[in-house]
């Protein structure tokens, strides 16, 4: 027999090669980032358009999102349903997503149907119909969805958190829009937004799969050479300043849990201490055995899960601790989180850092398993204007971070005196807990995030 109490040591490690990316350029200036994969007869392609809801006018929040819903509602000879049938015949999955910085249109297709699938995608992008009837239907659908979201505590918590942190700048608003902005959007607004932002010079393409370089250039030239190349890209974000820590709550009757968000604005993805911050957050709340999940879930059982993360938008970062706890323990859970935010600035052990580095380095190859995963990795390089060798240097960049750098990252990037704290739950049960915690009256907000007078 052998001793089961000793964990086995790993075998010889495999060398992992990051897929080679090729940069191809079309005559009309569209860049294509291409990785050839031969194992399966599948191709994934996406067009990243630097559009997104940060470009929404103040009084018409929700414009980019609604545009993304309408762009595949018919093109040229096909109406909305016929277009959908064309994709279904091929077994191709079309997805269109709008977020703060981009609208991303993608297809996942079998190799044998790729050319036709890309042709359909190009029709969508180049010749959307924007019929009035489709506009009215999708707009109503968005408004009814906004109505439904009034009952989703986690959505309310996240959207008000971002509103407070970003303080009415372009990242402060929900992508879907509001009941007082969406009604003001007209079909002409959609057409204008499309004309101005969904252009070749404002976009990049990514192709991953079973196809070669010549074929990629050929099919893209066939279908995308007439895409409008005008450009109207402006920088809109002005970083708001952080304020002194403040606690807000939103009353949600009948809740047996409280949705909690705590955090503040953070540095951009391309800041010099990105890797140190990644290591630090892995320890703080970035994975299951992190400090925050450990105390809130595994020691106290207050929650199903708790985490902290740094989100990266094109022009800004966002630090956020997120959890839902049973309502009786709201105050204590917030206290525990605040303690962890203080503690990590004071002490991080070498052992914790070694664990985090090992985790981040060794899980890296598994981030390149599916074609979509590969594409999303390269997408992040494009969105954050990072150099091509970012992945090649990934391991080295993590390895070379030293203990002091991780500690400084906590001191510089976790700011307990400048937090926005949001709690969504039953007022009767959480008000007293919050008041006791901060020794002052917490500010009550409406579910739109405005002060309750």
């Amino acid at each position, binding site marked *: 027999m052998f001793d089961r109490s000793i964990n086995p040591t790993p075998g*010889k490690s495999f060398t992992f090669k990051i897929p080679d990316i090729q940069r191809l350029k079309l005559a009309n200036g569209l860049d294509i980032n291409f990785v050839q994969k031969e194992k399966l007869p599948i191709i994934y392609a996406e067009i990243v358009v630097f559009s997104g809801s940060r470009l929404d006018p103040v009084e018409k929040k929700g414009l980019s999102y609604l545009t993304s819903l309408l762009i595949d509602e018919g093109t040229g000879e096909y109406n909305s349903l016929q277009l959908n049938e064309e994709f*279904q015949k091929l077994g191709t999955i079309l997805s269109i997503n709008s977020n703060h910085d981009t609208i991303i249109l993608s297809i996942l297709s079998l190799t044998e149907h790729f050319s036709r699938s890309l042709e359909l995608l190009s029709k969508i992008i180049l010749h959307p119909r924007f019929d009035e009837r489709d506009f009215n239907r999708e707009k*109503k659908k968005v408004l009814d*969805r906004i109505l439904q979201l009034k009952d989703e505590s986690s959505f309310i918590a996240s959207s008000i958190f971002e509103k407070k942190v970003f303080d009415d700048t372009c990242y402060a608003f929900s992508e879907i829009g509001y009941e007082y902005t969406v009604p003001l959007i007209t079909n002409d607004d959609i057409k204008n937004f499309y004309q101005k932002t969904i252009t070749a010079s404002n976009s990049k393409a990514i192709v991953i799969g079973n196809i070669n370089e010549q074929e990629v250039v050929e099919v893209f030239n066939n279908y995308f050479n007439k895409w409008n190349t005008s450009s109207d890209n402006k920088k809109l974000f002005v970083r708001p300043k952080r304020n002194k820590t403040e606690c807000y709550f939103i009353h949600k009757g009948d809740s047996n849990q409280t949705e909690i968000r705590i955090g503040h604005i953070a540095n951009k993805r391309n800041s010099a201490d990105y890797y140190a911050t990644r290591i630090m957050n892995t320890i703080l709340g970035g994975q299951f055995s992190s400090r925050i999940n450990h105390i809130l*879930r595994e020691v106290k059982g207050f929650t*199903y899960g708790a985490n902290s993360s740094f989100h990266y938008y094109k022009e800004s970062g966002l630090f956020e601790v997120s959890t*839902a706890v*049973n309502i009786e323990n709201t105050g204590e859970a917030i206290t525990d989180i605040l303690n962890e935010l203080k503690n990590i600035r004071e002490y991080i052990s070498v052992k914790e850092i070694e664990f985090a580095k090992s985790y981040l380095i060794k*899980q890296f190859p598994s981030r390149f398993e599916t074609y979509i995963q590969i594409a999303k990795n390269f997408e992040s390089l494009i969105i954050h204007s990072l150099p091509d060798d970012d992945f090649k240097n990934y391991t080295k960049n993590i390895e070379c971070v030293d203990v002091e750098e991780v500690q400084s990252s906590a001191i510089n990037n976790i700011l307990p005196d400048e937090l926005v704290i949001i709690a969504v739950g039953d007022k009767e049960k959480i008000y007293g807990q919050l008041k006791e915690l901060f020794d002052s009256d917490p500010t009550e907000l409406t579910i739109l995030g405005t002060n309750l007078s």
Partner: protein
Amino acid sequence: MDNNLLKINYEKYLLANGLQVILYPDNSVPVTAVNIWYRVGSANENKGKTGFAHLFEHMMFQGSQNIPKEGHFRFIQEAGGSLNGSTSTDRTNYYETVPANYLELALWLESDRMGFMLPGLTQEKLDNQKEVVMNERRQRYENQPYGRAWETLFSNLYSNDHPYNWPTIGWMDDIAKFELNDVKTFFQTYYVPNNSSLVIGGNFDTGQVKELVDKYFSAILKGSNKIPAVSVSVQTLKENRKVVLEDNVQLPRIYFAWPTEKAFDKNDATLDILSDILSASKNSRLHKTLMFDKQIAQDAQAFQYSGKYDGSFIIASTAKPGVTLETLKHEIFHEIEKLISDGIPQDELTRAKNSIKSSFIYSLQKMDLIVDHINHYNCYLDEPDSFVFDLERYEKVTAGEVISSAVIYLKKPFIELNVIPKEK
């Protein structure tokens, strides 16, 4: 495209203690995936002790004789792997995907909790995870709009003695009452090698892996408790029944459930295709009528929900503001009638089949999904290499069969659930 792309080369063998082992080598990937199915789920529970299989899944991450609490996560994550488990009505699975050179670590961890779980179990750990699971129930069901709809629907569809009568997470009152002794007995009965199936897929040398499996698993004793059979009473509804649930929602939603048949049974694939024709895409029957033409619904879905012991066909749809559930109901049944009387054009059926075929190919990209499928086929069909068989079930379905399955099942009595806004 050739369906043989979906054929897998595997080796299956049995250890003396009854553990089924399936090896699926693929050296084109840098990872190895380990996937264990225990043939126990909420269907094996009893009234008053519901939620046990799921709670037990939590306990399996609380350490065992040689692994400390949270040890599974720490070891696997430090190795750059990912891990989790899940519980359904029929089975509980546990899985790790690790860089290929860490395979032995995953086997060590899995074998320790299969063979040496009880010495690590304490009252303190149980109390902690009971709290966690109660919060999981609050977060995922009770504090979500429409979150209690599914358990309400199934507990009304299935009679009290049927294994699908209660939700997998269990009733809150039952979770609060779990006792340590019950946990121990449950483990000794169901978490035994002769009730489980281990699949290893990815980058490894077959000879070496067999030695490792032998080293870690062959010393685990076969279970000595008799594994109780699950008894399934035949469900027939004598008449339609309507249930109303008040919830914190803005828009009312209607649900229908009909008893159908279990997974891989004669009409199972046909009912899947029926559900696709009703609701899988923008131009599906329900979406087109309810959401596109009449614009009386915010969403609509239909699916055949089938497990090891039984199945049901579900349709659900949310009413637009000002639209009554009666109106939705009328239109939904009108669509079903129309499908039965007018038939299904060939190209509509082909579109549904093409989407299914592509999804089979797309699913071959991720090793953890592949090994879970292999285990699924092994446990349901006793044949791991069933991807082609499974796809062909769908390819063979005719328009006539879709219509007759609609007649056989959807013309019978059903449960109707109305989730309506709470009076404030």
